[in-house]
């Protein structure tokens, strides 16, 4: 018996076709008609796992058919692997980066910057026809290889296994290291013993402890950013100027502003205008790096704001969202809860600190762009001391009118796990909002045990 697959309804096609094209970095465009064809004809054959109606999917994978942005982010996600392959065929340079960092210098240096999740997404998309369980087994297998070559206690392996196996054509491993995570820096170092000697390695050294107040620390990080751009230039063979960086900063500030405005618009609504996953995918567009194409993200983001404003004005409730859902704010590592199942339990995710911290950090546009970028980066709220980070988080919780807070961390994520208790301690003390700390395995399907805890928490709320 075949798996039950989701299909987009023809009833929504006409409205979708009225929406805008997506414009890409290389100036090419894709029309709504082409997107519709891909989502309804090609993608279900290539990626049946993405269309499988399965409790453990982790998300609804865009089931809000009347929200064009939902279909477009889905399209960008499903074509990601093919687009990265095409970019490489056309000589584009690709860098591995850390999650939670902005990508302005990579954009300036004409390099696609992919965080760990996106590197995995690229690899996942290379094989067609898998159902959700086969896909999961395939991922587990490649992770086992990485654990063997690095450490089985790694929370995530940063694509080591794909890069060193030669499956992904990544030119340079150059993340901001020890920003939020220590495994990334050990992961970068691990590449030195791999067979692929032509992959360039660089630590962009993110210093710790009250660094945003120290001029010498800002200057040091700015020097690291200069070194980063020089390294990226060595790969591309071009010369990135300060003006290029300034242009990239302005472009990314536009994305950050739009992302922030969109989040605030969403929060202003009496009823949640989208479900959890659509909210997250729209807001994360603000960082412009999520789909490996800055211009594509920007064009979808601009249009999204219009749709959300309309929904807020008309009091439209997001697809599959319960009446008066319990509003959850998620903190911690680069993972989340199963949005759709949490909605089934009567909740909705109204915000996360991950991806939001750097989206809400604008970069000054006057003066030395390296210094300004370094300063803004060292000011990321997520990277501050326990007290300072907790205070910023409390502001976001209040703005989003959250009823409960979950601090979630990956198994093996020492850096976030270590401060989970003090952070939720402060939040609970100062807001009175219930909190709990949740650990999950990054590599695998979302299981019952995990959802039981979330559901019990929602029930308690």
């Amino acid at each position, binding site marked *: 018996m075949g798996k039950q697959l989701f299909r987009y309804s023809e009833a929504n096609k006409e409205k979708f076709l009225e929406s805008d094209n997506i414009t890409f970095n290389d100036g090419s465009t894709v029309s709504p008609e082409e997107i519709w064809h891909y989502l309804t004809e090609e993608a279900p054959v290539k990626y049946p796992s993405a269309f499988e109606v399965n409790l453990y999917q982790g998300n609804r994978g865009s089931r809000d058919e009347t929200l064009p942005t939902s279909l477009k982010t889905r399209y960008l996600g499903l074509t990601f692997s093919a687009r990265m392959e095409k970019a490489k065929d056309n000589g584009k340079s690709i860098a591995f980066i850390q999650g939670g960092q902005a990508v302005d210098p990579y954009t300036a240096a004409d390099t696609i910057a992919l965080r760990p999740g996106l590197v995995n997404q690229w690899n996942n998309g290379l094989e067609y026809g898998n159902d959700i369980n086969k896909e999961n087994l395939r991922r587990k297998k490649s992770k086992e290889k990485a654990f063997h070559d690095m450490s089985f206690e790694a929370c995530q392996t940063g694509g080591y296994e794909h890069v060193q196996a030669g499956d992904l054509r990544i030119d340079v491993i150059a993340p901001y290291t020890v920003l939020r995570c220590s495994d990334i820096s050990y992961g970068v170092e691990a590449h030195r013993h791999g067979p692929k000697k032509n992959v360039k390695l660089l*630590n962009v050294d993110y210093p710790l402890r009250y660094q945003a107040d120290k001029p010498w620390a800002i200057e040091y990080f700015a020097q690291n950013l200069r070194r980063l751009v020089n390294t990226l230039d060595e790969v591309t063979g071009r010369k990135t100027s300060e003006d290029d960086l300034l242009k990239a900063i302005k472009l990314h500030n536009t994305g950050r502003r739009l992302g922030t405005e969109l989040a605030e618009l969403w929060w202003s609504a009496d009823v949640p205008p989208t479900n959890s996953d659509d909210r997250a995918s729209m807001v994360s567009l603000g960082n412009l790096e999520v789909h490996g194409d800055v211009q594509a993200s920007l064009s979808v983001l601009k249009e999204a704001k219009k749709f959300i404003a309309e929904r807020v004005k008309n009091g439209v409730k997001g697809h599959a969202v319960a009446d008066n859902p319990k509003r959850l704010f998620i903190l911690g590592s680069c993972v989340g809860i199963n949005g759709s199942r949490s909605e089934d339990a009567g909740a909705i995710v109204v915000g996360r600190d991950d991806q939001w911290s750097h989206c809400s950090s604008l970069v000054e546009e006057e003066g030395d762009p390296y210094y300004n970028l370094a300063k803004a980066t060292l000011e990321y709220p997520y990277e501050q001391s326990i007290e300072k980070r907790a205070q910023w988080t409390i502001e976001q919780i209040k703005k989003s009118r959250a009823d409960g807070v979950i601090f979630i*961390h990956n198994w093996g994520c020492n850096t976030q796990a270590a401060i989970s208790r003090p952070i939720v301690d402060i939040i609970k003390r100062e807001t009175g909002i219930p909190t709990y700390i949740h650990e999950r395995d990054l590599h695998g399907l979302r299981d019952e045990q995990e959802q039981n805890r979330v559901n019990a928490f929602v029930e308690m709320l």
Partner: protein
Amino acid sequence: MSVKTLDVIRKRLEERPDELRRARENGLKVVGWVGYNVPEEIIHALGFIPVRIAVGGDDRLVEIGARYASSKTCVFIREIVGAFAENKDPYIQQTDILAFDATCLQNYRAAEVIEYFFKKDVVVLAVPRNFHLDEAKEYFAHEANEFTRLLEERAGAPLDSARLAESVALYNDIRKTLKSIYTFQASKNNVISWEEVYDLIQAGELLDKREYLSLLTQTLDELKERQHYPVIASDDGDSRIFLSGSLIPRGDRKLISIIKSVGGRIVGDDLWSGILPHLDLDIKEISPAGVALGYLNRTPHAALPYLDLESDRRLKKLQECLSQFKAQGVIYHTLRYCDPFTFKAKETKNVLAKSGIPLLEIHTEYAGSDYEAMKTRVEAFVEMIKIKSEIAEEQSVLVDA
């Protein structure tokens, strides 16, 4: 092979907590430090009493620490946090100020958690990951000045250059004497064991520095008297083991006792809690930055990533030590969630295999439940080394014949 001064040192260690209590009653302050790049000379020169906070081997404290710093933090850090929560350790009780460095990110997190939950006065020295680059050294010099400024505030007086020079000279003498003593433990017909020297090194983390130097000098004199020319070479039937990997602090002797119990002889280490921090420390300038850079320029800690395998000074130092101490095998100790070392276990094994040195990784925590499993593995490793050296000896006899 009893060395009399060691008994004196053991006795002085028993008396030390009371001594610290009295010193504090007389207005002195104790700085507890945790890390690899904390420039202890600066603490000493400011008139503080430095003691190293490093405890291990107690899974009950690990459990307590996990309540504050998560069960995913490394065992050593969890135990430290647990010890602060319990507040029964005599050195923790006597600590006025804490100085941490951010070499290891988990160490840094411990500073934050201890500061938050136990309201301790904490000073943190940031440490650059790109430690080998000029701009990183310049940054670290600024950080060392800032670290000193924060300690000066607490001392109520500025750092005096002449006193810093005295402290540097004292610590240099300690390091030099320790290196000399260390040679004796690895020698043929040794009169002091590695285990005794290891305890001796760790005694220096707690004792008064001038007295410690004097005790080290006495120890060295005693050793020289009993063994005029120590020659680093095997005794018959030796299985010469080198210990590498995660630190083994005071209170944790599980692996060390297992190695000894199965007939292995430890002849060297490059542990963060052993001889390594005392090697190659060259302070070129008497200033906070000069001292701190001396620390940063030593063999780097595994928590600081280095991207070129061929020129990695940590691995070169390991190979140099293996050759110097004529080690036949490496037991690579990794603690649960100690990422700086677990990530490098396989790589280190592969590097050493090229020169025919076998490596056994022992991944453990402070619970006793894995004792027998560890023992079985270590015993097999020691036996393998013995057989290998017997075969090598037989072959050399045949060649000579």
